[in-house]
């Protein structure tokens, strides 16, 4: 062919090339080591220094932990066993304090023979939270989640069974009030009634009703006062109550802050800014000291309840800001599409806006939860016996005077397990939602 240039000779491959292995140096562990640890002289230097530091840390921590002594009944006992076993001068952990006092670290001064109750309450918590966390479970189980807080309350504090039942009925009363108001005047009146009527019910009707029912049918279990609560149980109660209550409150605050209604908007902004602008410890002192001045004399408003309210307020201010970020990230078209289809405000929020905004906000929300859970240790300053408070009182006994690290390591590990699992769950949830929607 005369007009075909020599370079563009037609070409057809006769046989296909088989797949071949990459050159040895470029494969597997060797390749990884070379690329990540020894790719240049600076990298090599960093690797060597890091290895040295890791070695120094591990060579003290590992023997201290692994050789630790479990079978003593006081710190002096620990030291004697240590000297006998490893000779003078060797530092090892005295885990015996954990073996001796773990029940106290977990349950505080909760009566020993009733330990099953908080454990059961924790199981009820897991059963209640499962349908919320794992959307694959049947939706009907959510009714169980609604009942779980009341069951848990009853298991933990005990007393007459009528207390939690009558209080829980307040929710049904609220739902009924909403229906009636909604029929008569629309969602606004329904919303107001749904808040006001249950509060009136709880304030004026619940007390006499509980007493009446208890005198007719006295069913109950042994009552345990809040003063006996302590340890991780206390952290869990405050943390879990704070987390479950602060999420809805935070969402409402975020919506309030976005609202066009002047009063609602300003109240939300003021609440968020004031709560967020003052350290939690100040709010805790307020809860423990100041509230007594404001409350009518003679009211016995449980300190733990006050702390839960303060922690909830504090976390909800943060959640509100995180959720607001999620709301702001949504394109305006989503709001408009909902409006154009005739969805009212409540429906378009619930079905369209919040599911998307919360998804964006998950990392921030879980972050806030983790912070809240760890901040429960601050209650030690107002005299509640959280794990830190208990470690102080354990240290105050003659047996364990002078022991620090072992207690803190134990407390730290338990907190780490909880917070780390929350973090993992949030990652898994994010991945699941991204997979679903893209």
């Amino acid at each position, binding site marked *: 062919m005369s007009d075909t240039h020599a370079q563009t000779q037609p070409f057809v491959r006769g046989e296909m090339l088989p797949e071949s292995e990459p050159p040895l140096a470029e494969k597997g562990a060797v390749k990884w080591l070379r690329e990540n640890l020894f790719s240049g002289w600076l990298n090599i230097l960093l690797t060597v220094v890091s290895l040295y530091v890791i070695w120094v840390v591990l060579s003290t921590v590992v023997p201290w932990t692994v050789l630790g002594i479990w079978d003593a009944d006081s710190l002096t006992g620990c030291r004697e066993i240590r000297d006998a076993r490893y000779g003078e001068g060797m530092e090892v952990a005295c885990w015996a304090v954990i073996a001796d006092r773990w029940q106290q670290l977990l349950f505080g001064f909760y009566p020993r023979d009733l330990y099953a109750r908080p454990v059961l309450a924790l199981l009820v918590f897991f059963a209640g939270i499962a349908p919320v966390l794992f959307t694959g479970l049947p939706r009907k189980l959510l009714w169980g989640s609604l009942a779980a807080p009341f069951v848990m309350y009853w298991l933990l504090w005990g007393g007459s069974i009528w207390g939690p039942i009558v209080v829980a009925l307040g929710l049904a009363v609220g739902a009924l009030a909403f229906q009636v108001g909604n029929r008569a005047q629309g969602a606004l009146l329904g919303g107001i009634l749904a808040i006001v009527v249950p509060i009136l019910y709880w304030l004026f009707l619940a007390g006499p009703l509980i007493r009446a029912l208890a005198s007719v049918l006295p069913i109950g279990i042994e009552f345990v006062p809040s003063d006996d609560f302590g340890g991780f149980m206390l952290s869990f109660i405050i943390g879990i109550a704070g987390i479950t209550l602060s999420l809805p409150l935070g969402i409402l605050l975020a919506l309030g802050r976005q609202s066009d209604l002047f009063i609602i908007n300003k109240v939300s902004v003021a609440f968020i800014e004031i709560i967020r602008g003052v350290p939690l410890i100040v709010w805790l002192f307020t809860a423990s000291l100041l509230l007594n001045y404001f409350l009518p004399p003679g009211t016995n408003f449980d300190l733990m309840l006050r702390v839960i309210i303060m922690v909830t307020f504090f976390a909800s201010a943060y959640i509100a800001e995180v959720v607001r970020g999620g709301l702001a990230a949504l394109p305006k078209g989503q709001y*408009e*599409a909902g*409006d154009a289809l*005739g969805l009212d405000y409540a*429906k378009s929020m619930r079905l369209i806006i919040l599911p*998307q905004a919360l998804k964006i906000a998950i990392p921030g929300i879980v972050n806030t939860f983790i912070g809240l859970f760890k901040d429960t240790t601050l209650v030690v300053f107002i005299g509640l016996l959280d794990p830190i408070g208990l470690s102080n009182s354990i240290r105050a006994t003659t047996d364990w005077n002078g022991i620090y690290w072992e207690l803190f390591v134990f407390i730290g590990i338990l907190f780490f397990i909880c917070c780390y699992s929350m973090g993992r769950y949030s990652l898994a949830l994010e991945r699941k939602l991204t997979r679903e*929607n893209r």
Partner: protein
Amino acid sequence: MTATDIETERHIDRSAMTVSDEVAIEIRGMNKWFGSFHVLRDINLTVYRGERIVICGPSGSGKSTLIRCINRLEEHQQGDITVDGTLLSSDLKNIDRIRSEVGMVFQHFNLFPHLTILENCTLAPIWVRKVPKKEAEATAMHYLERVKIPEQAHKYPGQLSGGQQQRVAIARSLCMNPRIMLFDEPTSALDPEMIKEVLDTMIGLAEEGMTMLCVTHEMGFARQVANRVIFMDQGQIVEQNEPEEFFNNPQSERTKLFLSQILGH
């Protein structure tokens, strides 16, 4: 401004395209301001049932704002808008009623990305019209078939092409059984091949006698389907006419200039 003048080869069945005497939308002396900016000025427009109206005009002339006032995505400050006999006021019940009677298709689709195609289509019927789920799904599948994507029903919007998403958006509106459809540049975010599939869907709607108000620069569509073309500039209706007259014999200078730019001659 670019105008892809895509001609649809298909034969258009005009038998059901009849304009009745019944008024669908009545706009009287309507004015709107954004702050101090007078964006719509003395708009008077009567739309009869069965009309297919194309609104065109330069960017910023207020076309979107006009049709968004009809379902109260924007609030007007002066004049009256009556949709299907209901006067638009700040009464929320009226607004919700009008919104559920008037379908709207946006330039950027605005599908709900966290819901499947089917859920996108059944959401409003179930929650606004209180249709049972099964029935809503059957209706949704019917309309998805009409826009020719029933097989995508269980995917998420992010997995569809732009043209498919826009057809879902149309199906989503149709599921509410609207008596009027508003389109705001439904094809201007799409590639040419996809424009055709969306226009085909819209032609299908017109053939069934739907009342349509359509902001678009698809002049081929205007010629074939519209019974009236409205030209807007600076917040005012400058000219309106039947498409034949409008394109061949424009009256105002502005219209002539606009047409010469958009048709490229």
